[in-house]
């Protein structure tokens, strides 16, 4: 092989590497679908209390609250000079692992700490333990694509049967009964679920097994999809893309994915007078029905999936921030408190709904606001 030919090849390969590398980098940067952070948020940033916040605050965990975190971090850093908050969205499991290894000041998680995880946290929290502080809520929307049908109502038993491959046609009598007047086609239902493990899957499973125990007999605690049938796609974005592309498809994802891709969402017949739409407001109403099951300063919630309250959308996901009640690292404690003070404050909660999340209902938010200053 001649030399100049080889160098030409190298140059081309290098060019390709640069181009594709740039593509990858931009791909990484552009998954922030909460970017249109308006001017009013920067204005509200002036209300942030920085106290003694300084230096770097490391955190990791749930991807479900990533967009909320991005907004909070941006506002907080804009208000408090010299502070850097670094939240790695690596998944709840990973976040808890890092927290219990003492690598991060707090973890974000879609589910409260398990007993053995609390026991493990006592090693890191000298004289204390890890506690769950509810911080962000959000509706899990059931998106569908069915040509000719744009106002679909379902209830928990029908949803369970659809996702369990018991109902396989869109013109099934059970669906027709809930949608009088709709022209349901004789199309096969293609139910999509997540192929990766996810707190979103877990929350839908919990909802189905509580609201329709007779029709959903799978393990409600698992984060991977428990039912045998159906099809899968990777991540909420993958499920949303698959639903958008396939006629007769139905799937679940956080509400922001449905709004971003213009996917119709199912209204739920919860037993209330009117079917409930998946909106941030309706999710907040459902979170208000939750009971606190944690003891002491722990605010782990037990969600009421069977709520019949008017306008309460019951398929919800609540993410917690997990920190030590006592024994937080001295050097990050002031920053941790200042940051959590901001996220649970009225301004902090207000920005959430723009990013597709549900603000905490007043009662729970008040409790969190009481606990954050007591962290030590």
């Amino acid at each position, binding site marked *: *092989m001649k030399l100049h*030919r080889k160098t030409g*090849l190298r140059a*081309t*390969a290098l060019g*390709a*590497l640069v181009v*594709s590398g740039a*593509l*990858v980098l931009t*791909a990484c940067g552009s998954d922030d679908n909460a970017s249109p952070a308006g001017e009013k948020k920067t204005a509200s940033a002036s209300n942030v209390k920085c106290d003694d916040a300084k230096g770097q605050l490391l955190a990791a965990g749930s*991807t479900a609250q990533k967009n909320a975190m991005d907004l909070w971090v941006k506002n907080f850093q804009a208000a408090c000079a010299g502070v850097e908050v670094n939240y790695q969205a*690596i*998944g*709840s*499991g*990973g976040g*808890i*692992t890092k927290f219990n290894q003492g690598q991060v000041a707090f973890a974000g998680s879609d589910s409260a700490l398990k007993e053995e995880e609390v026991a493990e946290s006592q090693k890191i929290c000298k004289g204390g333990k890890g506690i769950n502080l509810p911080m962000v809520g959000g509706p899990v929307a059931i998106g569908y694509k069915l040509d000719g049908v744009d106002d679909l109502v379902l209830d928990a038993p029908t949803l369970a049967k659809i996702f369990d491959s018991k109902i*396989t046609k869109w013109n099934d009598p059970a669906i027709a009964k809930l949608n009088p007047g709709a022209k349901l086609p004789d199309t*096969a*239902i*293609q139910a999509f679920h997540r*192929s*990766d*493990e*996810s*707190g979103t899957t877990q929350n839908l499973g919990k909802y189905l097994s509580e609201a329709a125990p007779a029709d959903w007999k799978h*393990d409600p605690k*698992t*984060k*991977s999809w428990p039912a*045998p049938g159906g*099809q*899968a*796609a*990777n991540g909420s974005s*993958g499920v949303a*893309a*698959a639903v958008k*592309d*396939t006629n*007769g498809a139905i799937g679940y994802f956080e509400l922001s994915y449905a709004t971003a891709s213009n996917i119709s969402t199912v209204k739920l017949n919860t037993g209330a007078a009117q079917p409930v739409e998946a909106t941030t407001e309706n999710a907040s109403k459902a979170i208000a029905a939750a009971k606190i099951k944690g003891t002491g300063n722990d605010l782990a919630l037990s969600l009421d999936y069977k709520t019949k309250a008017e306008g309460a959308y019951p398929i919800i996901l609540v993410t917690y921030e997990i920190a030590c009640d006592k024994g937080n690292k001295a050097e990050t404690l002031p920053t941790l408190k200042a940051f959590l003070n901001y996220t649970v404050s009225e301004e902090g909660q207000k920005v959430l709904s723009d990013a597709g999340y549900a603000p905490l209902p007043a009662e729970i938010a008040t409790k969190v606001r009481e606990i954050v200053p007591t962290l030590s």
Partner: protein
Amino acid sequence: MATATTHTPPPPGRNDTARAKASAPSQAGDRIFSGLSRGSGITLLVIMAAIAVFLTYRAILAIADNEGNFLTTSEWNPAGDPPVFGIAVLAFGTIVSSIIAMAIAVPVAIGIALFISHYAPRRLAAPLAYVVDLLAAVPSIIYGLWGAIFLVPYLDGLNKWLDQYMGWTYIFDKSGEGVARNMFTVGILLAIMILPIITNVTREVFLQVPRMHEEAALALGATRWETIRMSVLPFGRSGIISASMLGLGRALGETMAVAVVLSPSFIISGRLLDPGGGTFAQNIAAKFNEANEYGRDALIASGLVLFFITLLVNGAARWIIGRRKEYSGANA
């Protein structure tokens, strides 16, 4: 990884004299080079051993608590109580998808390589070779996105056609509804991904065929195809095998593209067109983020199995190449 070299080391006789010269104290450069290369070789072995030790250590912890049979269970629930996980589905899926990929990619790659090296006009051959090389520079997640967004909808029609006319073969029988997020699609995608590496190495080997061999064949009155069959293919055989093994290595370990395209489920089914199945790397990518520490150990245990499968495949390839030394470049 199988090496892509087309020349086996020179026979021992020549080697000895070369070494005797190299050991002369005056030639410092030679000694430094020999030390460097020996050091690199040892470093490589140490790294491999470290990986094996790490995987084994973490895997033992998880496997010890596993309630299922690690090799034959088709379920994955290491966070369950009791923990149950097995690699049967993953091993099956990994091997099946790689076989499909190889069945498609190897003949096509040989065809492209022959076209570039022997048939294409010079002006076309060079750009074509560049284009094939460029395919190797595309990151696998891009292949995955392309596969999920473009390939899957387009393969729907092919799937329906295969189901209708080839359904009697069982493997092309499509039992239910569902878009083409299946092992067959994964195999096609993997085939495209491993094509450049196989083509590239094979083309290089074909270009190494001694001119005399081809001219001799032509002089005997052989047509161009006969020349290729009599001199190029036999000469290149071990090279083709090495190239295929390099490609197979990539197909076995491909992660993101498979994770994005496949609709996984823990079922072993020979029906390639139904959504389902899974591969080692895909399963690790899908479960790693949300797994607890125990689940991660279980995933590492499955990674260890992939490590062994890859070792076995490459060992087998070396053995095949070793048996066919008479065709390799050293004797040309």
